[in-house]
């Protein structure tokens, strides 16, 4: 670790917060339907969207209507994206002449992109036509993020209202989030990326004659337009197999830094918007502080573990001063790589600038644990905010038990129904992650996909289900996911990880909205200060660390000691 390295990390984090403050105000306005400086340009487009789809923007929905609308939209996305992949062979804009995608892979990829996971069991440059990349995958980069944002602000609205039957209109939230927030940001970022070396062309490849006279085929395409929303929408699905580690997706340290900034931006700004909307910016601050502490600790552990390196290799005569460089790109350096890896898994982005599979055991433990927590530090677009608010609800309940008071959060009493719904959401994850992992290690077809033996093999499988369940999408990419077993089970994990989680959350929103919002009294447990931050961290540790410790002990932790003892598999 170096001072310069930490300076890089701090610079990016400070820039994120600095940009998130004004952007948070903007998001608050957008999601409240207020006028913004973009209104003159975008309002006509917005009106066309409502008119053609027959939406009455003034009519709000109860939580059931809101949920059904979200499910209907996701279903339409699922079917259309599946069809597009299957038919790409006979559709235009297919310069590489790819065939249609196989049914199980097309199912997996369709679920992956509508759930904002962007897990990829395929290599982009060897599987997907330009039409699929643009009119399929890029579109869902936008709308799955806008869907997440919609659900988060439906929950925020539930806190701000008193005795309300409705929580907003899904179609309006979706449209406004996509149009006013994601599209303008993506346009700016995509052009900056092109200037920085990310290609944007309709060609499929360029042929070069190397200095030694060999032929090198360079895959290329409309990369920048997808790369921009991939980071901003915390999606993470790369145009190329190597994702942002590919020199065309992450051409320089500057662009790598900009990508790390972009993937943290909207999640952090959403928390600030939350603070504004509930009428106390300190509520946003305490949530953000909690997220920030976990994020920075994670960055520190990765940075330390990766610069410490792999003593087995050092013993063979490899200079250890640069740390572990297997699966890393020279231009990014260890500090930026650590920041990016913690950020991409703390959010639900999942794009990578290095291969997490080749990290040291403790370096790889951090991304894994970030995802086991459900990607809430600071979480995906929208998903991070509603994820941490659910944990906050549980925290005030625990605090209430300790002091013997009826728990309250943001003026809403937390009672049996709310607790049941919050726990129902939280409890979706462990059976999916641990159940599917256990099944995979007992099946030959599950083990045949491994690229590494020993404890690292278990980590590969655990990582895959943690990533898909939390809708992250990064991978210990040695695992061959494109098999019937993994395409199906990982697809199910993504589907249930998103929808079985969000339906109880929206029910919670409905229940909270219907309650009276009572003003804070002397007896109210304060949720805007350091005490709450400490409690929230404690609940996160109890909920997740204890739950997954046995699995982690058998994977990365035992591998760490094996590495120190010089044992190989």
């Amino acid at each position: 670790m170096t001072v310069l390295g930490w300076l890089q990390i701090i610079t990016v984090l400070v820039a994120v917060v600095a940009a998130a403050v004004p952007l948070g105000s903007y998001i608050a306005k957008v999601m409240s339907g207020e006028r913004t400086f973009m209104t003159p340009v975008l309002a006509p487009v917005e009106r066309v969207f409502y008119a053609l789809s027959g939406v009455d923007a003034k009519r709000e929905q109860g939580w059931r209507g809101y949920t059904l609308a979200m499910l209907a939209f996701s279903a339409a996305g699922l079917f259309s994206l599946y069809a597009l992949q299957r038919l790409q062979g006979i559709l235009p804009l297919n310069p590489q002449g790819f065939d249609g995608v196989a049914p199980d892979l097309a199912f997996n990829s369709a679920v992956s992109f509508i759930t904002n996971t962007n897990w990829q069991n395929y290599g982009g440059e060897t599987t997907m036509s330009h039409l699929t990349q643009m009119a399929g995958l890029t579109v869902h980069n936008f709308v799955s993020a806008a869907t997440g944002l919609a659900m988060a602000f439906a929950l925020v609205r539930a806190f701000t209202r008193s005795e309300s039957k409705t929580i907003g209109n899904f179609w309006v939230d979706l449209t406004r989030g996509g149009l006013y927030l994601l599209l303008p940001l993506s346009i700016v970022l995509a052009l900056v990326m092109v200037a920085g070396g990310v290609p944007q062309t309709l060609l499929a490849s360029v042929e070069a004659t190397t200095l030694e006279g060999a032929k090198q085929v360079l895959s290329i395409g409309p990369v920048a337009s997808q790369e921009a929303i991939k980071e901003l929408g915390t999606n993470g699905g790369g145009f190329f197999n190597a994702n942002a580690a590919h020199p065309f997706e992450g051409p320089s340290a500057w662009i790598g830094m900009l990508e790390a900034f972009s993937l943290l931006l909207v999640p952090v700004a959403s928390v600030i918007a939350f603070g504004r909307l509930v009428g106390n910016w300190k509520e946003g601050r305490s949530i953000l502080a909690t997220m920030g502490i976990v994020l920075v600790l994670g960055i520190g552990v990765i940075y330390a573990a990766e610069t410490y390196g792999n003593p087995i290799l050092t013993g063979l005569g490899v200079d250890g001063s640069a740390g572990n460089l297997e699966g890393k790109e020279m231009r990014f350096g260890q500090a930026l790589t650590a920041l990016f890896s913690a950020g991409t898994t703390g959010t639900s982005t999942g794009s990578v600038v290095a291969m997490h599979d080749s990290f040291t055991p403790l370096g790889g433990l951090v991304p894994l644990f970030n995802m086991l927590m459900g990607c809430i530090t600071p979480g995906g677009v929208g998903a991070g905010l509603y994820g941490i608010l659910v944990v906050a609800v549980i925290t005030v309940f625990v605090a209430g038990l300790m002091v013997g008071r009826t728990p309250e959060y943001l003026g809403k009493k937390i009672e049996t129904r709310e607790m049941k719904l919050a726990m129902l959401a939280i409890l979706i994850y462990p059976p999916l992650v641990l159940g599917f992992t256990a099944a995979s290690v007992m099946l030959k077809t599950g083990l045949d996909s491994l690229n590494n033996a020993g404890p690292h093999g278990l980590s590969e499988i655990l990582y895959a289900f943690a990533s898909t369940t939390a809708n992250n999408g990064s991978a210990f990419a040695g695992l061959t996911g494109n098999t019937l077993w993994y395409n199906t089970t990982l697809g199910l994990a993504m589907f249930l990880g998103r929808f079985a989680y969000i339906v109880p959350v929206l029910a919670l929103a409905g229940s909270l909205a219907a309650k009276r919002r009572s003003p804070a009294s002397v007896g109210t447990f304060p949720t805007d200060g350091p005490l709450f931050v400490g409690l929230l961290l404690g609940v996160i540790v109890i909920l997740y660390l204890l739950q997954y410790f046995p699995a982690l002990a058998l994977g990365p932790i035992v591998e760490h000691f094996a590495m120190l003892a010089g044992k190989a598999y």
Partner: protein
Amino acid sequence: MLSHLRPAVVMIVLFTALTGIAYPFAITGIAQAVLKGPAGGSLVTRDGVVVGSALVGQNFASDRYFQGRPSATSGPDPKDATKTIDAPYNAANSVGSNLGPTSQKLIDRVKASVAALGGSPAKPVPADAVTTSASGLDPDISPAYATIQVPRVADARKLPLDKVQALVADNTRAAGLFGERTVNVLRLNLALDAASGGSPGPAASNDAPAD
């Protein structure tokens, strides 16, 4: 549920038109108009021939050139398309080794690479010289790895050592707040060819973005 069908389908169509067609085409149009070089892949040409991309590494095997990092990419076997064989720096199929830190395969591979470079625990070799990159297409190496290659290249080209070392220094990226001190292998080798005179052509032009 049925009442949600129309907005669901229409919204998918509208977002596809806007973010799946209009947005990428607009970005492509603007990029091709004002940022043609980087939008086209930062290609480097010499004597009118595209010799590669400034951003993407390529395979160098000869002693006359500086070599990049080991690469884990593969490609179809020309003799039997159903099989894949090692094809370093295959820029049509980016991939890392994905070998974990306790992998015997990794250890065996590194051991062989260290031996090939004449390294030992007493005389360690730079880490980037024996590890594969994340994409298999890393265009850069560390100055230390370039330096240990100087004698070999100078010998193969019959150039004075200090001249080759000076070329390495000239082609080393200065450290800033962001970015490591690295050497772009393709640029260094182009400079090397130019300095060797005779052997292929005048200085290359390139339309890569500025660092």
